[in-house]
């Protein structure tokens, strides 16, 4: 409520912009609902985007709000995806049960790996997160009988959602289902970051030494954030398995960990809507550049990273905010 950004709003009361802050996101949610009706051909792509937004949102809780930068977030996404996939092949293929299980397993993986890794921070943590994800990736690669190894889990089909809605070939059910999950996750994350717990995470991000000196159990606080983030990443992974009916080794890869981090940074970390902006931008750019030659895309990715870190540290949303603020100042003078 009283952040730097909002303080600026208080200083520069502009009825239009304060309203836009609330109305624009609402319009976006409504517009998303209309995609299967007005652009049916894009529904499967839109589902992919929704899942990635959910994944990036889970990462935002760590990177943006707690200041934990990880290069192993795919480990948790993959844990959710493999849990859903393996369960569907062996136990039950009910979408909700497998999704919840995916969340639970990812949360558990997050709890176990996090309780070791979070004793460190900064670069040491970054390296450990990378190592943990590598190990999980290798484990899945070797356990071919369970995971399908390099081939992944093929032909994973799921029962109709709530016993009613089939996962149709046009992908409508998949889309509305993943959008509903994203919306629920968004509401949850928004609650959490606006709670005293969420504020304390920001305190840790800003100055963990001071947090310790006001009696905050930093380690447990960061671990809690890590587990919540893990569960949401696991949900994204499980959704991915359900809507593509396939689990690939890539879902545990460094590449995916890196991609989701870039997406978040591109949109703007620590802003709740950064994931919503960064993921589509990233995926469109990828689509555009990789069409002719995948090498173009790697170059493009490099350029994006370079430009973002050097010139636009707050991501696209940060840029928008800065422009608006300077316009507001100019207008008042």
């Amino acid at each position, binding site marked *: *409520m009283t952040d*730097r950004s909002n303080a600026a709003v208080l200083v520069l009361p502009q009825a239009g912009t304060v309203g836009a802050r609330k109305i624009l996101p609402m319009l976006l949610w409504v517009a998303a609902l209309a995609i299967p009706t007005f652009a049916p051909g894009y529904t499967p792509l839109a589902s992919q985007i929704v899942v990635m937004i959910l994944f990036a949102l889970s990462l935002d809780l760590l990177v943006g709000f707690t200041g934990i930068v990880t290069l192993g977030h795919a480990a948790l996404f993959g844990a959710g995806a493999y849990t859903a996939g393996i369960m569907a092949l062996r136990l039950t293929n009910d979408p909700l049960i497998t999704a919840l299980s995916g969340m639970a397993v990812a949360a558990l993986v997050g709890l176990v790996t996090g309780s070791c890794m979070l004793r460190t921070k900064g670069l040491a943590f970054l390296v450990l997160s990378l190592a943990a994800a590598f190990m999980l990736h290798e484990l899945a690669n070797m356990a071919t009988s369970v995971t399908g190894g390099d081939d992944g889990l093929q032909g994973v089909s799921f029962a109709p959602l709530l016993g009613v809605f089939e996962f149709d070939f046009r992908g409508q059910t998949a889309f509305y289902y993943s959008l509903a999950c994203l919306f629920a996750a968004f509401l949850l994350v928004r609650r*959490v970051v606006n709670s005293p717990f969420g504020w*304390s995470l920001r305190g840790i991000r800003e100055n963990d*030494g001071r*947090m310790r000196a*006001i009696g905050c159990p930093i380690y447990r*606080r960061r671990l809690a954030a890590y587990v919540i983030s893990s569960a949401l990443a696991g949900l994204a992974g499980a959704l991915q398995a359900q809507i593509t009916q396939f689990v690939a080794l890539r879902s545990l890869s460094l590449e995916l960990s890196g991609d989701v981090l870039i997406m978040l940074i591109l949109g703007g970390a620590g802003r709740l809507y950064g994931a919503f902006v960064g993921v589509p931008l990233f995926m469109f750019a990828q689509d555009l550049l990789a069409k002719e030659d995948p090498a173009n895309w790697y170059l493009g990715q490099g350029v994006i990273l370079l430009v973002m870190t050097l010139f636009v540290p707050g991501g696209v949303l940060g840029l928008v905010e800065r422009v608006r603020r300077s316009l507001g100042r100019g207008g008042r003078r």
Partner: protein
Amino acid sequence: MSGSAPILETRGLTRFFGPVRVTGDVDFTLHPGERRAIIGPNGAGKTTFVNLLSGRLAPSSGQVFLGGENVTAMSEARRIKLGLGRTFQITSLFPNLSVRKNVFLAVAEHEGVAWNLFRSAASHRRQFDRVDELLDRVGLSDVAEVPAQDLPYGRQRLLEIAVTLALRPRVLLLDEPAAGIPTSESHIILSILDTLPKDIAVLLIDHDMDLVFRFAQRITVLVQGSVMVEGTPAEIAANERVRKIYLGESDHAAA
């Protein structure tokens, strides 16, 4: 004063940085309600001593007791819960968060609502009342919504104190609270300290002798990590060795 049990005590407290003994065999006691100052030349080990008390640093040997309990192995956060509060010589705040949020974080930890995940922080009325009361006490109400980093340094020093007072410490350690505040205004610090409950023990470190002598009932002089002398302000002012150190400080540093 010495009739009551000490609230804070160290026995043989020693700390090395490499081969250098920065805290040397310090026996120190502080009683409830006491107003104590520690003075000493730059690099005497005053901040290190505070860090050993607060648990930021572990001693090489010796013990720390808080309220009679041996807290030597206890984490910083646990010592805070037992009633220790400290401020930092170099301002340590949450720079991008508003002044109110800075204090709220401390109030939330102290009142045990910081684990609240699902209720919005803004709806914690009772805690915010306390935040506003604290801001009023240190005279920062007018800048409550300003990000901490946008305050002038002197006012950041006051926020530093407010954040620590939010913890309702039984023992308050102030590491040069007036550093960065113009000497002409250091009385603000004194008047804030005057608003504290009388049973709080306060340990003040400062180079501003005027402030120190007006504040303290007793003064401890720390030189090269060890207690050189301890006494009432009058005794310290009359002490030959202390005068030598303070008058010939450059000589001493060269030695």
